[in-house]
């Protein structure tokens, strides 16, 4: 066990030694990996930021039922009673016109506009969540509610949220595909780097085999080298992402503020950042494993 640990220690030291001996090449490799990985990592960070916005909106289909402006509270009570007795409705939420005005006043940038009004222009409204989510049921329910004399307008609200959800789903898939492609690229870069290392150390490998080194002993420094290279690339990707988001947030927060929002592009959660670094190291290891498996067998003492 002690000698096994010592051999691992030596292998790690040898891997660091190889990186130090080829600083420029190692830095360039890490940079290539870092740039490649920063793209899907950046896409993921962007989606995470948008998801936080999207989560504020319900993706369940719902109907907004606006009463006529001249409708009495009794009319609203009658509509509420009808909706509660409706088998196709899961639940309803009544929003009195006074509450709606208060919410509007609380919206940034609109307080002054609302204050300037001499009367409340907003109607009483219901937010209706139906049991069924199919378009036919929703349309039928909306049609029936529109026919109620006290009802001014019925709006199916979930369409935009559904579109956003679908868009984000597509973006997630695109990022996953991009990540898979770039991961393949990372493995290829490490594969080639390790191949060159093996060729450079051909004599040493041959001699080591000749004097009794096991394959595991010979392979180990290359595995660590691949993993270290991947890790360096992963950390660089995180640094690139952090720098890019910091720069982008200057403009994004200004733009969001003009819409009365405090939206900012957020950096990855600590767990996600750790996953990027470890995933990158694992891909580096995989590239090294494939390379060593292919080329080490070809080197035999003569």
């Amino acid at each position, binding site marked *: 066990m002690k*000698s096994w640990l*010592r051999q691992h220690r030596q292998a790690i030291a040898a891997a660091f030694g190889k990186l130090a001996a080829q600083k420029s090449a190692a830095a360039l490799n890490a940079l290539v990996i870092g740039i490649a990985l920063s793209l899907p990592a950046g896409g993921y960070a962007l989606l995470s930021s948008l998801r936080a916005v999207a989560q504020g909106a319900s993706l369940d289909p719902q109907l907004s039922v606006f009463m006529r402006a001249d409708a009495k509270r009794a009319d609203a009570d009658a509509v509420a009673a009808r909706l509660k007795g409706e088998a196709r409705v899961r639940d309803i939420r009544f929003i009195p016109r006074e509450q709606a005005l208060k919410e509007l006043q609380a919206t940034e940038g609109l307080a002054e506009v609302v204050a300037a009004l001499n009367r409340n222009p907003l109607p009483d409204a219901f937010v209706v969540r139906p049991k069924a989510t199919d378009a036919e049921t929703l349309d039928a329910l909306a049609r029936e509610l529109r026919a109620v004399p006290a009802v001014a307008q019925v709006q199916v609200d979930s369409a935009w949220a559904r579109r956003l959800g679908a868009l984000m789903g597509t973006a997630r898939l695109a990022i996953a595909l991009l990540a898979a492609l770039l991961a393949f690229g990372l493995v290829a870069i490490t594969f080639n780097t390790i191949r060159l290392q093996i060729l450079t150390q051909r*004599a040493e490998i*041959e*001699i*080591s*085999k*000749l004097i*009794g080194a096991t*394959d595991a002993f010979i392979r180990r420094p290359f595995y660590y080298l691949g993993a270290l290279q991947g890790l360096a690339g992963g950390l660089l990707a995180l640094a690139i992402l952090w720098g890019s988001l910091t720069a982008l947030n200057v403009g994004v927060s200004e733009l969001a503020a003009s819409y009365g929002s405090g939206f900012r592009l957020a950096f990855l959660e600590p767990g996600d950042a750790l996953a990027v670094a470890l995933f990158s190291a694992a891909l580096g290891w995989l590239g090294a494993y494939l390379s060593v498996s292919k080329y080490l067998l070809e080197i035999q003492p003569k």
Partner: protein
Amino acid sequence: MISFSGVVKRYPGGQEALKGISFTIEQGEFAFIAGHSGAGKSTLLKLIPAIERPSGGAILVNGQNVGVIKRAALPYLRRNLGLVFQDQKLLYDRSVYDNVMLPLAFGELGTREAARRARAALEKVGLLAREKANPIQLSGGEQQRLAIARAVVNRPSILIADEPTANLDAESAAAILEIFAAFNQVGVTVLVATHDEALIGRFARRVLRLARGGLVE
């Protein structure tokens, strides 16, 4: 003990390097493999650490049939053999000391014991004072002595040398053979391939003479 029994080695293309060789080298014996270039000396020696595999016959090394040994078992076989080559096979980007430490890196010894063992091996071949030097700074004879130090540092039971004196002057060659003889005196089996008849004559040891792939005496 090394035992060859009807060993045949045929290379791809049909060239027969060894034709049914049989002999036994007892534990603690010192023997020369003599013969001209192309006689099959190197091929014979390469069969012992399974660098080459026989096309026929059986080779026993310390009771193990190395002709059929599995790849995974090769390192453990080779750790019990000290191998010295005509071209030394040294690492020229490492110091003399690091070259000798190489076989100990994958052994069971701790760092301190390994360092002690490496220095003892260097002392035996008279290179302790040059431990920090690069092998390229050493003379041909010194490089060969360094190769011997690396071969014996794991205390092998068998020492095999393929033309270890080929590129050396007579005095250096004799010095190398003296080192082999010293190891043999402490029980190490030594097998040296050489075409240098004068050198063989200076050391009265058993000679296995090869000619065209066969033993002639």
